[in-house]
């Protein structure tokens, strides 16, 4: 289980990294934390001719507050997000989700840019990015552009980047909410989710004024359930709301069977988690 031969470059700027990708003529691949890419290389399922290592580029790892948003550099490690007081204060759903990302050793290496680019449908950061309506800044030969998180994820393990583009920053709008919840079930602690949901609510004069719902592990990409959000806002709040909400959520998905869980079981889990998550979020809104 050794990778096929590749050239290795270690650029010190994003521009040089993009240039290396361009020079590789579509045969290049970016290396960040390596936690997903190295197994693919070793299985020879990925065989880039050139490996462009981002780890020597300074200024790609940061967590900054910019008025109503939090900007995160692409090379920021999972562990930094998990431990950041700023994230805990401003993006509490992310803070709650990060401890479910893999194991400590992997969180020490894995990066947000790598996680988004890898686009695993059961990974936390892609789901959080659609939950928060994040914008993803990427740099390519023609300069920078931004991509809305929901546009970014195309299919399982497939993003919308051009081969010469590199994710450089992700901006998360600070979400105003009164109650929120993050629920996840994985086979073992740290495994990829079998099903997971993030919910947040803002109460209005009657019922809810705003609601957000995002899922992972139940489709080929993370899902933002905008319809369900509207239906939840339209609902009258009573003690049957969580149950009705969970039925709505489950009606929006048709997960596939795989080795770890059948689609039916994932739907069952999602129903339980949706109910629990909304209960928690509503209870916290006060």
């Amino acid at each position, binding site marked *: *289980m050794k990778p096929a*031969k590749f050239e290795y470059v270690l650029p010190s700027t994003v521009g040089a990294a993009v240039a290396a990708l361009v020079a590789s003529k579509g045969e290049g691949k970016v290396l960040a934390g390596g936690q997903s890419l190295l197994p693919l290389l070793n299985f*020879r399922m990925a065989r880039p001719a050139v490996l462009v290592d981002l780890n020597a580029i300074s200024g790609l790892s940061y967590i900054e507050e910019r008025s109503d948003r939090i900007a995160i550099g692409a090379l920021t490690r999972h562990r930094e997000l998990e431990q950041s007081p700023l994230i805990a204060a401003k993006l509490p759903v992310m803070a709650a989700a990060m401890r479910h990302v893999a194991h400590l050793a992997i969180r020490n290496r894995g990066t947000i840019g790598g996680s988004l680019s890898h686009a695993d449908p059961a990974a936390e950061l892609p789901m959080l990015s659609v939950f928060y309506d994040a914008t993803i800044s990427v740099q390519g030969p023609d300069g920078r552009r931004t991509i809305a998180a929901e546009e970014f994820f195309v299919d399982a393990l497939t993003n919308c980047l051009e081969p010469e583009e590199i994710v450089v920053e992700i901006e998360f709008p600070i979400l105003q909410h009164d109650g929120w919840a993050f629920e996840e079930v994985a086979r*073992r602690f740290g495994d990829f989710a079998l099903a997971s949901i993030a919910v947040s609510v803002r109460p209005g004069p009657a019922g809810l004024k705003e609601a957000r719902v995002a899922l992972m592990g139940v489709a080929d990409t993370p899902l933002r359930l905008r319809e369900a959000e509207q239906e939840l806002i339209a609902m009258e709040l009573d003690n049957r709301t969580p149950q009705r909400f969970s039925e709505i959520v489950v009606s929006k998905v048709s997960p596939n069977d795989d080795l770890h*869980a059948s689609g039916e079981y994932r739907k069952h*889990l999602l129903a339980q988690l949706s109910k629990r998550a909304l209960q928690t979020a509503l209870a916290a809104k006060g």
Partner: protein
Amino acid sequence: MSSDQRAHLLDAMRPKYVGAPIKRTEDPRLLTGKGDYTADRKPDRPLHLAFLRSGQPHARIAGIDISAAQAAPGVVAVLAADDIADDFKPVIPFSRMPNYYATPIVPLACKKVRYVGEAVVAVIATSRYLAEDALELIEVDYEPLRPIARAEMAVADGAPLLHEEAGTNVLIAREFKKGNVAADLKAAAVRVSGRFEMTRKAPLAMEPRSCCAEYDKRRDAITLYTSSNIPGIVRDAISESLNLPGHRLRVVAPDVGGSFGSKGSLYPEELLICIAARKLRRSIKWTADRLEDVSSSSQAFAEVVDAEMGFDANGVATSLEADVIGDVGAFSIYPWTCGLEPVQVVSFLPGPYKIASYRGSVRGVATCKPPTGPYRGVGRPISTFVTERLMDLGARALGIDPLEIRRRNLVRAEEFPYRIASGIIWDKTGFVECLDAAAETAGYDALRKQQAEARKQGRLFGIGIASYAELTGIGSRISAAPGMPINTGSETAKITIDSTGSITAAFGVASHGQGLETTLAQIVSDDLGARFEDVRVVQGDSDEVPMSTGTYASRSAVLGGGAAKHASKLLQEKIKRVASHLLEANADDIEVHDGNAVVLGTDRAVSFKQIAKAVYSDMKTLPVEAREELSASYTYDPINGTTAAATHIAAVEVDPATCFVKILKFVVAEDCGRIINPMIVDGQVHGGVAQGIGAALFEELIYDDDGQLLSASLVDYVIPSAPEVPLMDVVHVESESAVAGGFRGMGEGGTIGAPAAIANAIADALSPLDIDVSILPMTPERIFRLIEQAKLKAKGQADD
């Protein structure tokens, strides 16, 4: 975490080292990265080997084109079956069992491939990277044959044959019978039955299999370092196959990072690497990657058992009947044969119980999968699962408490030795004592109350018990695997005091994590009268003793320990004789302890160092005839071996929201005879239970209907990690066995009891929903489906 109820021995009578919780001497090295594993070997300019493995489950090899690979950078040789045909004799896993076909073992697939993962071509290059590059250039022309992915497919009419010469896919068939089962079942007050299944497992040692063949040009000799627990067997088999005498073939198992059975058989790769080293006259290294390890190391279980048990009205089990079909994979393994696992299931099904009549029949059938082989517990994890489920079903049908029904059926202290219905003889062991100790430690009555409370709240809380017995440390009268021609009944210890007064104790047994360097040194120190720190244990090296078969079947403490005791005593006699000259005292008046020979009741003493000097160096002190070499060797054979037993109790809760099982309590009360090192015993129990939790809740090798392995990586083959293993209470019921030292084997028991106890606990938890547990692992997916079916059934009944 563990309590100690060893009431039987007075503390004052305890030997100094045996019984003491001495820290493992191997741990500082192993835990700080200073272990010396096979892959750490650095022979002179080694070559590296990579295997092209079959991606086909069953196919004829029409042709192999290696020309491009031969021309690839760094490649030294490319070998396929035809290239080595004259370099070895196939190894035959012979057995005297009737109705058995021994599939020959060859280093590389010849004419046909029979499972995905079978080695077809070997590339030897200057680096593993280049070797793997060259693998991609090899073209194998396969003509696909119909795959046999399941045992049922193998015995279906018109099934293709995996081994045409065998004339059948049933490689082994056997039946055990006692009494009139049919009549007893008919007469039974209650009959319970089921179809039980344990799916396929990977033993999954942390260190994958690894070999390093170090070639000595001057002597055309090979030292094979191999990550094995049977270096002696490997030596003898390769010697025979390659016609390489023992003085030119040494097989060493250095530090070995776990086996769990996967390193306990001869492997084609071990033959191939020696053949290649000899052909190329170079040293060669190979370490399996995880994919190779999971898809080509011997696998476990894969049995379906149809079983029925009859009880009289008092809850006494009278009769047991079982038909077992084992999916043994593509080959019979050496030396254990493909009968090892499935035949063990039928021979142990009656378990520790006095069931009068029995019929157990077994078929081991060939399928397109890697061979099954030894796996911690061999056969007994399943036989215990089946028998303990039936006990609980009987208890339920009769309205008797599961604890009580076991008490009514276990062999009692006064009834040993006891021959169970399958013919196995249990020597005196604390069966009932373990049951009672486990119940007491678990707080069984309180647990039942807790369960009643939980049920009132609608919670799914269950308690499961499993009692079992196993044969350990077996001697020459019983074969470790049925009808096998090699001797697994003895082990040798050779103990030497050198000219510096230091002690080297050499064994053929081979630790792969058990801590034998510590426990054997404890025994030698006590029986020789040495200081623990002066004893070095050498093991796992075929050059150290004339013959050995290694470490497996819970034998090393009993056989290695027994040999150590006898050899130590012989050497101590020599020490006394020399000391009697030096101290001018009668040998009978001399006592040996702490590395000194002392005249009883005096302060006159000589140290081992002084004794060694007198014997070896200072030619003035002793008469010539008294200069006996300070060395003793003993080959110990316990003849029958001894029983070990335990009761496991698990309390679990099933969360209906997630369908996950949480283990709330786990208690083991075990009788391993005299304990050599309580910390090591606890560690073995903890590890064994963790492995049993894997079998009960997580681990499953999934092959599709085409024989492709779907769970080949650790993302898909799910094993318990630390958070999934609960704290457990281990209680020791220390009843001494009849073998030397009073030891019993205890390395496997954790894995035998845990799956059954957890299965019973889950069944108990789900009993309000009328759900039965008959397949392991009980994954969340399976529990989900069982609950859904139960809901549908309940709804159907309500609708009627």
